[in-house]
């Protein structure tokens, strides 16, 4: 645990480092109304997605369809504003979240009941959901003019200098983190990811938990869709394309093991912030537009490598601990070991 915490501390440190360096090069990066706001605002959407993805990955699954779900729900949000102008914002938002939950449930149901790999299924639904959006939207798109001012304002509004979307992301993060850490269901998600077969043998409600995880992932993707519409003010049928890899990248950078069982949503959130902050920092420190992706890629690989180093240290420590003061299994062996061997000899002579 302490070591996991150290893992998150590492990312946080890297984040601060990036911010620090960039701010030195360009004070406005932090010390300007816009700089400060974007620092908090830009990662908000990816953080929400990463939290959802982290929960799924912890169960040793993955949801590649989040980008398409975001696109669909973002468009739905806009459509509702146009087709049902007098719906209150909250209702619209809830509708989008509900839609996301539904799409997540579809993934979860197929994975949990047909016992098929999530990677394959969500790769399929990535295509399907995107196709549905394209069919529905066609060349139509939602422009800022189509959405209520009040809603668009949410995309940038600040409370006490903190953007609303950032607050939303923070609340989501806190809630999910609390659930994972302190509830039975939360711990079971880790158990399932740690060893699915053992989880089944232990009689955990594996299917229900998987459904829950995917539903949560979908719901958060839906919420992200709403945030997307509010922030970018325009939604085309291509919204969120290719986001899945960015999200998984963030989760991995955040130290959530891709094979499930370990990692925290806080880490995933930090990973998301780190990725996007670096994205924004690179041009400021003068890395030309075109080379930026390369740097991000190198960063992701670096982060995973770091994880490995830490993990290896951990298991070495555990092995050492076992040898140093061998617990139950190996301690008291000494004095009485001959016992059963004698007995056994006797029996087997008898059997002869």
């Amino acid at each position: 645990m302490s070591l996991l915490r150290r893992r998150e501390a590492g990312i946080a440190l890297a984040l601060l480092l990036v911010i620090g360096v960039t701010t030195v090069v360009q004070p406005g990066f932090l010390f300007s109304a816009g700089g400060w706001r974007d620092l908090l605002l830009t990662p908000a959407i990816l953080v929400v997605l990463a939290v959802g993805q982290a929960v799924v990955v912890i169960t040793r699954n993955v949801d590649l369809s989040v980008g398409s779900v975001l696109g669909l729900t973002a468009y739905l949000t806009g459509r509702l504003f146009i087709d049902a102008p007098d719906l209150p914002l909250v209702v619209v938002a809830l509708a989008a979240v509900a839609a996301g939950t539904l799409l997540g449930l579809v993934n979860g149901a197929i994975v949990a009941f047909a016992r098929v790999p999530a990677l394959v299924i969500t790769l399929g639904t990535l295509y399907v959901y995107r196709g549905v959006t394209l069919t529905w939207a066609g060349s139509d798109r939602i422009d800022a003019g189509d959405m209520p001012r009040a809603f668009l304002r949410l995309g940038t509004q600040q409370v006490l200098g903190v953007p609303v979307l950032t607050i939303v992301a923070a609340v989501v993060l806190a809630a999910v983190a609390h659930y994972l850490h302190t509830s039975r269901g939360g711990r079971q998600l880790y158990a399932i990811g740690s060893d699915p077969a053992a989880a089944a043998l232990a009689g955990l409600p594996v299917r229900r938990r998987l459904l829950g995880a995917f539903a949560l992932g979908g719901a958060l993707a839906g919420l992200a869709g709403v945030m997307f519409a509010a922030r970018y003010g325009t939604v085309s049928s291509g919204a969120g394309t290719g986001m899945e890899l960015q999200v998984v990248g963030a989760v991995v950078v955040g130290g959530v093991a891709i094979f499930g069982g370990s990692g925290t949503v806080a880490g995933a959130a930090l990973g998301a912030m780190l990725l996007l902050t670096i994205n924004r920092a690179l041009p400021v420190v003068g890395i030309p537009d075109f080379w930026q992706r390369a740097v991000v890629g190198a960063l992701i690989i670096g982060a995973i490598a770091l994880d490995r180093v830490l993990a290896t240290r951990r298991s070495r420590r555990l092995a050492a601990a076992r040898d140093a003061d061998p617990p139950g299994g190996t301690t008291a062996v000494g004095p009485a070991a001959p016992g059963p061997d004698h007995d056994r000899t006797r029996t087997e002579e008898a059997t002869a």
Partner: protein
Amino acid sequence: MRSHARPWWQRALLTREMLTVAILVVAWVVASATVRGFDGPLTITYLVLDIAPVLLVALPMTLIVATGEIDLSVASVVGLSSVTFGLLYQAGLGLWAALAASVLLGAVCGAVNGALVAYAGLPSLAVTIGSLALYRGLAVGLLGTTAVTGFPDSWTDGATANLSESPWPVVTLGLLALAAVFAVLLHATPFGRNVLDIGRSSEAARFSGVDVRRTLLILFVLSGAVSALAGVYYTLRYGSARGDNATGLELQVVAAVLLGGVSIFGGRGALHGVVAGVLLIGVLGSALRLEGVTVNVINIVIGTALVVSVVAPRIAGGVRVRRRASTSPRDGSAVAQRS
């Protein structure tokens, strides 16, 4: 003792691969019968030209997935090799020199992935998501806004010309040859057996003297090299080397491989299934386009096909599902490891 539980024809026909082959045949027949213009000679030409890069990359991907790993960086390698090839052409290199150099670079890209996965023991999914961004970044970085064009016809013909009067493009031969090579490699050599064993239990493979790391490294190098080859083909077919060439190809390839019946957990898979998977995606696309169906519906169809192809056998062979599920937890986890 009997060497087989089931008669040969059952073993040959009642396989996951054959399901894909069957769907392909049906799709083809239906399309030829109902879709105007599908039975024309152009269909074959375009089909081959379009699927060529997917098929190329799918060959090594099949083996990688069969070990339980995955390589998502392939499309970026295609892009990077396309750019390198273009730049080398500008620099005045000959066709073969430029081609060799690009393929070599691809091999290096693959080696980097392979080293990180096999020797540093990092999860391939994560690593190659990283190198996907890295290699693509290098590709667009190298060329920026420019695109290298104007390759001599003598070069581009190799990628686009047909065999004399037949509707079959020249590249067909190359594809068949390479597919055959990989088929033999996977199904009839010790290396292939080891690949499948690693997919099922790399621990047991190690105890049988299989050099798991070297095997993985080789596979990723192959993947890089073949992707680079696809990059060159790409460049010559479209006569334009660009940093963003083949963006998103990786998902198409993975989809095709899985559609072809390779288990994402590793340990199971056959090349004829994958070839059928690639063709199926190509045929569906071309038939639907001829019907004037737009890209979105095509996406839906392909996505659904992917899901169904995985779910259907599960539901059919429900017995097997239960059996697999009830094997000892240790093995269960060892298998699930790679989900």
